[in-house]
């Protein structure tokens, strides 16, 4: 998460606003190609135009997906996007310190999230609001992170959805350890096996921890799906600053499979995730998935992408919108009518309104929370520090200094 000038309350600038350096037209074209073409190995089941294309390898993983299911995937994406936009708006209105938008990554996340079973475990990074949703976590439980009241209020054990991890890459090793535990406990080996899925970005692939996670998971045959959302950007740096090769090929050097999926295709994301989880359940993990997608919004609400990327790129990706292609498909096959879309929209607006109300009513956390839960077993030194401060604080609040 970057913290930009907004955070530091800058004075109004005297000079002209920074303008994005104007790229040459060759640069625009090269950039567009690099970021928008997934290459021949991209697994896609639903084209940007909403057409279902056959894939002999992965079709069977979504053979059971009914029109009902597709509508439900659509609904998840719409709701998730709506909550995301509300988060963004709440930040703009000063209700949140920062917001980390997922805009554009709904299909990657909902596809992966819906492939998971209750018994599976998830380690998110900080942008996985869509996966959280699929784990039954309300956007309300995420809000505290960005409002600054807590670090997330869901029960990560009950939901099997680990807290958001902000230090890039850390969670990949934590997930590898968890998955090793699943294996050590004998929970792996057949179709009922458990698995773990860990989320990280394209930029994260450069971190030593991600590599070590690959090494550990490979050596211990851990039932771990590495789910890399390549949204083309690590803040201002394009993927070319992290790797010469497409990221799914990184797996080659470790001896486990790597697959590139169209991250804007929820069906493909679902299929590939199911396949990968299935491999892991059976003891054939780990597996790397690179979901080829695009960060449609800024890195965070404090980021200014006009400084480093060209709007043409965004326009090109708009044509590949993850929600739109499902809508078109549903319409084309007569699987949904306007009523359906309206009702989803209404539901989304309600979700947003509810989130908004919730946000406005979030209480200021008590001062004592600074000291709570630092340790599981009390520390007398910290207790004394707390008692002294709370006494001072009460005193101070009570009388004048």
């Amino acid at each position, binding site marked *: 998460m970057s913290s930009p000038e907004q955070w530091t309350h800058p004075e109004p600038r005297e*000079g002209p606003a920074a303008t994005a350096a104007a790229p040459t037209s060759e640069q625009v074209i090269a950039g567009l190609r690099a970021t928008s073409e997934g290459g021949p190995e991209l697994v896609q089941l639903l084209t940007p135009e909403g057409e279902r294309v056959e894939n002999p390898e992965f079709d069977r993983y979504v053979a059971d997906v009914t029109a009902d299911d597709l509508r439900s995937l659509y609904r998840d994406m719409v709701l998730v996007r709506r909550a995301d936009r509300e988060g963004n708006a709440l930040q703009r209105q000063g209700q949140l310190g920062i917001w980390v938008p997922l805009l554009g990554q709904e299909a990657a996340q909902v596809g992966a999230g819906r492939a998971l079973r209750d018994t599976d475990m998830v380690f998110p990074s900080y942008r996985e609001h869509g996966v959280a949703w699929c784990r039954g976590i309300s956007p309300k439980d995420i809000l505290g992170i960005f409002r*600054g009241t807590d670090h997330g209020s869901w029960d990560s054990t009950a939901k099997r959805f680990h807290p958001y991890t902000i230090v890039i890459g850390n969670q990949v090793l934590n997930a590898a350890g968890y998955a090793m535990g699943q294996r050590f406990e004998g929970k792996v080996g057949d179709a009922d096996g458990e698995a773990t899925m860990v989320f990280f970005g394209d930029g994260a692939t450069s971190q030593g921890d991600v590599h070590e996670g690959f090494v550990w998971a490979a050596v211990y045959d851990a039932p771990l799906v590495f789910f890399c959302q390549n949204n083309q950007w690590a803040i201002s740096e394009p993927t070319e600053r992290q790797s010469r090769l497409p990221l799914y090929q990184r797996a080659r050097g470790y001896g486990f499979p790597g697959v590139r999926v169209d991250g804007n295709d929820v069906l493909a994301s679902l299929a590939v995730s199911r396949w990968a989880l299935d491999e892991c359940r059976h003891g054939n993990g780990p597996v790397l998935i690179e979901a080829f997608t695009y960060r449609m919004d800024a890195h965070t609400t404090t980021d200014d992408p006009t400084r480093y990327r060209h709007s043409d790129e965004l326009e090109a990706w708009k044509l590949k919108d993850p929600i739109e292609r499902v809508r078109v498909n549903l319409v084309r096959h007569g699987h949904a009518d306007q009523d359906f879309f309206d009702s989803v929209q209404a539901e989304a607006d309600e979700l947003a309104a509810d989130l908004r109300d919730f946000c406005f009513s979030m209480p200021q956390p008590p001062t004592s929370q600074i000291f709570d839960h630092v340790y599981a077993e009390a520390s007398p030194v910290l207790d004394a520090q707390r008692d002294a401060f709370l006494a001072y604080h009460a005193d101070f609040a009570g009388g004048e200094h």
Partner: protein
Amino acid sequence: MAAPVINKSTPASSVQSLTLGKALNLGLRTAMEADPKVIVMGEDVGKLGGVFRITDGLQKDFGEHRVLDTPLAESGIIGTAVGLAVRGFRPVCEIQFDGFIFPGFDQIVSQVAKLHMRTQGRVKVPLVIRVPFGGGIGAVEHHSESPESYFAHTAGLKVVACSNAVDAYWMIQQAIQCDDPVLFFEPKRYYHSGFMKAEIDTEATPEPLFASRVVRQGSTATLVAYGPSVKVALDAATAAEEDGHSLEVIDLRALSPLDLAPVFESVRRTGRLVVVSEAPSEASLTSEIAARVQQECFYSLEAPVLRVTGFDTPYPPAKLEEEFLPDLDRVLDAVDRSLAW
């Protein structure tokens, strides 16, 4: 950038009114112009100019080989900077936020700090690691930490913190010129604060880098602070004046080696010392200051050295940071306690 302010005693062009952030930017630019071996590297320092815009415009003017948008890994940033330094460059690494220096900790402790000694002085490691540090910006976890004590505890490193725009401008250049590795801590919350804007005379002669400075004279008690806490200490001193207390304020500037002579001198006069820092207190720089002062000023102290610091907890969620961070009132309370001892 603001229009240069005309000042009588110096040529018009040599004085500019700059924020702390712009002062750092100008300091970096000046250092890069002066020495082609100076390079800037880090995450997003290029086109974006860093998430805080401290390196704004540098890549455009100095090129991609002198301002490197690196892959996303701090051990990589520091570890390759070491190699570049061995090759004769003077790298200036930006760590995006205080809490992200830890993946690079091993390279700092094992290579940056030890290479000069390991080679009996044959290999110098003139690299600067810039760290925007401290809280008060309403951020999420890992973005508001004060890790300076880890580095002060590490022999072989030098550590400084600037607290104002003029120092920022000079100290970054001096750090770059220094033949030792320097951890350079910047009070991020003041980067763009208008009230921190200062007249910077680029033709002045700066004070030495590793020297603390009395920034306000007083006689009742002494306050010692560094980085963002200097402003807190100064505000406290101003407020204390109303109560008739004359507080001396010392800006440490150098955190390792510490320049405590002015502190000893001050405490010998005032008999009382309060040390202010946002960092947790346990085994920290504030402990060190207390330990050294009680030894050097044993017979002068009329009260024990007191500390006003962040608590020994992880940095709390942003809504609680105002209470976590030392503020004017907590400093004054400590002064009162010292006076009443």
